């Protein structure tokens, strides 16, 4: 009953970026792969000033007066964010408006259910085309071939954001050849289906991976993958000259929100963070097996003797930007961040053709990117379910704000129904909408990555840290115990603005 009323209001457009009615002032640019890669043809569009106003949860008169009912199996920042929006939890199997599902449900159940018009879910059906390491490699390699045929080698070279990779055991022979061409090179082995750095190791001798040889009996791929078959791995050229800060290796996690693959609509959150290893970097042979040096996954670093649970090892992208600007100049940093953004979009374009688009779906990816000493970004992997469990207050604030922004974009409340697609929602910037998006920035496009200034929301206290099992925090208000003063956060803005002698824009960028 309830769902029917909602669905009737939704019918006109369920997904915000409705391809059928592109509103005139939006920066939608029909563009092919080359127009992004070339990135010269796109024109600057003037975005409405409304885009600059932070989305406020207190916007009057939402088009729907129904409470959103959500289902989820997890208790972390996502859960808190949904509760904070006033949504109600439901445990019905299919009786929900929004389901924050885990990938297992997607694999096992999604194909067998029918979704109502208004129902939304946080994964695409075959997201693994992007997030499984071997499939990503395959898709990008295919994309490179296509582009090379259609646009030439120069354009194809722009898709070179993955370090040379081979799927084992399938491409063992190819890999051996490549390995022999680069004597002394170091490669990294990653199991294709596992996350959090499980099963990762480094190799510098071919004998170390002889178990993945194709010609070993029983290893013939495709015919019979019995129990004795080796686990599928990809072997990837190890980036031996990562950019070091304070002598330590790091990679960058950025959040990418895809609301649709047809047309491809991509938002990137400007507030990513760097994850550091806790140990000084070294490429010495004796340290090859020390994953505390080489891996930056929190799941691995957690067990490092130097790890401190109270701090995590996360560094805001803003800090990285400041540091790099100081060392390498503003132009180099702009180029780097724009290149990172472009790599993200190119990776998505590589899977666009195979991805099953579905207007019920959106997906929040966690991209892992490594920067080398020449300031070239390398895409390490894409996570379909980035960890949204907070380990520290700092972590909580970051993720909670990001998830809130994500829900603002997805707009289940349908506040922006029928309005032009917004180039900026909270920390999310629209970077691709069936063509590269340019805001009213400049002649020289610069990424907004790392420009995040948190937008004041109602202050929150720490609610849930660590891994809490299901039902961990099923309380009503979630134990909000904000000091009375901190609640009055918003008036400060007004005070300080009117106090300043000049009308300084406090619009955070």
């Amino acid at each position, binding site marked *: 009953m309830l769902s029917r009323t909602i669905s009737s209001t939704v019918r006109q457009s369920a997904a915000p970026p409705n391809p059928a009615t592109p509103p005139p002032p939006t920066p939608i640019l029909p563009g092919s792969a080359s127009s992004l890669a070339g990135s010269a043809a796109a024109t600057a569009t003037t975005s409405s000033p409304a885009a600059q106003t932070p989305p406020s949860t207190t916007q009057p008169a939402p088009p729907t007066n129904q409470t959103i009912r959500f289902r989820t199996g997890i208790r972390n920042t996502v859960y808190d964010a949904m509760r904070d929006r006033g949504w109600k939890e439901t445990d019905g199997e299919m009786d929900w408006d929004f389901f924050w599902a885990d990938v297992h449900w997607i694999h096992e159940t999604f194909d067998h259910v029918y979704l109502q018009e208004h129902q939304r879910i946080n994964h695409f059906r075959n997201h693994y085309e992007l997030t499984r390491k071997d499939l990503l490699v395959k898709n990008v390699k295919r994309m490179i071939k296509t582009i090379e045929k259609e646009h030439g080698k120069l354009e194809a070279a722009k898709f070179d954001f993955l370090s040379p990779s081979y799927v084992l055991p399938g491409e063992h022979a190819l890999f051996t050849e490549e390995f022999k061409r680069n004597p002394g090179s170091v490669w990294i082995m990653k199991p294709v289906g596992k996350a959090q750095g499980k099963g990762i190791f480094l190799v510098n001798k071919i004998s170390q991976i002889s178990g993945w040889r194709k010609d070993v009996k029983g290893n013939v791929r495709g015919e019979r993958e019995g129990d004795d078959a080796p686990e599928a791995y990809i072997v990837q050229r190890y980036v031996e000259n990562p950019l070091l800060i304070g002598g330590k290796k790091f990679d960058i996690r950025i959040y990418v929100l895809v609301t649709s693959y047809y047309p491809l609509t991509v938002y990137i959150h400007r507030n990513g963070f760097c994850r550091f290893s806790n140990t*000084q970097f070294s490429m010495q042979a004796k340290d090859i097996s020390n994953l505390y040096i080489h891996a930056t996954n929190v799941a691995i670093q957690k067990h490092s*003797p130097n790890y401190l649970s109270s701090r995590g090892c996360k560094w805001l992208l803003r800090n990285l930007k*400041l540091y790099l*600007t100081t060392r390498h100049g503003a132009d180099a940093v702009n180029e780097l961040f724009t290149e990172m953004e472009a790599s993200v979009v190119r990776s998505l374009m590589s899977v666009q053709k195979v991805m099953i688009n579905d207007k019920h779906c959106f997906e929040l990816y966690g991209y892992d990117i490594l920067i080398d000493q020449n300031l070239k970004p390398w895409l390490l992997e894409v996570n379909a379910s980035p960890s949204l469990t907070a380990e520290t207050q700092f972590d909580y604030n970051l993720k909670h704000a990001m998830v809130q922004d994500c829900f603002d974009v997805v707009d289940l409340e349908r506040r922006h129904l029928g309005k032009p697609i917004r180039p900026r929602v909270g920390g999310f910037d629209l970077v691709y909408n069936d063509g590269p998006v340019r805001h009213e920035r400049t002649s020289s496009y610069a990424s907004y990555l790392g420009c995040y200034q948190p937008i004041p929301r109602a202050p929150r206290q720490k609610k849930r840290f660590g891994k809490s099992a299901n039902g961990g925090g099923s309380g009503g208000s979630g134990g909000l115990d904000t000091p009375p003063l901190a609640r009055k956060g918003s008036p400060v803005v007004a005070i*300080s603005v009117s106090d300043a002698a000049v009308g300084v824009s406090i619009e955070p960028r």
Partner: protein
Amino acid sequence: MEILTSGKVPVVVKDVDSHDVRSTARNIARGLRDTSAFWEFKKLVQRETLSSPTSDIAAVAAQIFNRSGGVGQLLQNHVRLRCHPPFPPTLGAHQQHWWTPHPTDRTLFRIDQLHLDSRVRRALETAQKGLLAGARQAMSQVAMEMDLPLARRRTRQEEAIFMQYAFAARPDDAPPVGAASLPSRASLTKERDPDRACLYDDQHLMDALSRAHVEPAAGTSHCAEFARFWSSIPVDLSSAPPVLLEELAYKYAELGPLHEHIGMDDLGFTVQQTEKFARAKATLGESILARRCLSRASRFARTGVPASLRPQIWDLLLQSELMGTASPTEHAQNVCKPLKTALAQHELLVDHLVTADARQCANDDAFFVFEDVLKEMMLFWIRDEWIDARLCPALPPPSPPPSLSSSNGCNGSGGVVLPPVTGRESVPGAEATASPAVVVVKKYPPNGVLPFWGLSLYAMPVCFIHGDAESAYLTFRELYVRCFHNLHTLQPSAQTPTLPHLLTHFESLLKQRSARLFAHVIRVCGVQPARLAARWLVFAFVGVLDVEQVLLLWDRVLGFGCAGDGIALFAVAAAALFATRGGLLMRARGVKDVEIVAVSEFTPSGASGEDVRLRMSTLSVPRKEFETTSDGT
């Protein structure tokens, strides 16, 4: 060359009368021989003379001297850096029309502010001595508890191991002490962890200050009472009329709203404007760097330095005379090499203190990355005798010697005498291979400064400027001797304001700005604003503001000269923070509220987006004041 040198000097310090000029010039010329740039210049002249067709040495020298960014400019910079302009205090002249800013005061912290009654001076000196005596006592206690000698020669094997692993974090390191924050963010009400190895901290500092006591002279007691009314600083430092808000607007004219600022206008109104401004600023900065002109650079820094030029501009501002032909990195490495050797050879007790201190950064979300770098910097710092030499020059002026030095090495009054091993290594056990050189260090610790808890906070933002520990260390040590050591010194100095002065300055500004707020915080909330501000001041706002904001603030401090107006700017910024928070503070009802408003929400990791507002508020007090004056006139 000699002629050239002394010929150039008077141009710069023309305000001093001629006799002084000559002697100063002589002094500087003598001092020049110690710098590497001097010898490089000679070498350069030699080389160019040999290669030039004419054999006119004087002409070649003059040409090298006069080229843009050449030796002549370096010399000017050197003189500017060396000469703390010893202006005679213009007290009399000033008092006649104290409301109009005095022209000579334009670039100086009003020097009459630094004139102190001898009793007050003595009281502060006693406070400082007491503090350091306590610190020394703490040190011998730490030595006893840790069962370590003050200094120890490492064996060769240990030396080798140390050289290899020196700065990397080791698994056996104890986790950093304290809760999850930097000392500048610690709560006022909570007890400190008593177990941490520290000699003294900012609270001890403030306690020592509040214990300072001036015996009232006969007949003036009322007056003194009256001056101390409404102030948490027990001694009356206001020997001159307080600095007025209007005066500030004049003094810090560059901070006024008519000037464009990095940190504000580069975030500006429209993209076009922003870009244009950023580009203009960058071009100007580069041309200044090319010409290596110190005075222009400092004027440039007053409106903020673009992040990409900051390392070079700061180098120019802090150590331009060193920029000979060697690259700054090489120079830094040369300086640090002996320090590294000393570090490998000797293990000092204070090493443990400064490393523990440096490891605090692990608790911070912005600085944890630099833990190893910081540790290295602090270990350099503690054994760098250059610092001692700069803080306490060999020929002390007749006026009381600069802070800290007087009571460090020698036995302060009432202090516990250090064990006589100072500097000499007490060889533990039987070391067969007799340690070759017995290094006698004049002072303990070798840099002459007893480290206080949180000292490494000064070094943290510098890590954002330089990638390698050596360059960062050089910047840090210059900043320390010029500026930061004044922030944790009670003893008044003849040239620059120290902590008591800064606090007085802060209080007077806040009272002028909003006496009601000041009263409210004291009476209703029961907090001394100066107590809160002291924490910000002592740590130069590190950990209080976001890193970027700290660097922007330091830009301005450097721009206005570390010694006078620059350091006073810290007090202005503290008052600005208070004033911006006025509305919220007025609603506060207790210590806890004040802390929430004034401390916790400033933290960079806070989700409330405070830093955006701070960007303005640090500057908005001078701006407001500027407006006040323009209204008034």
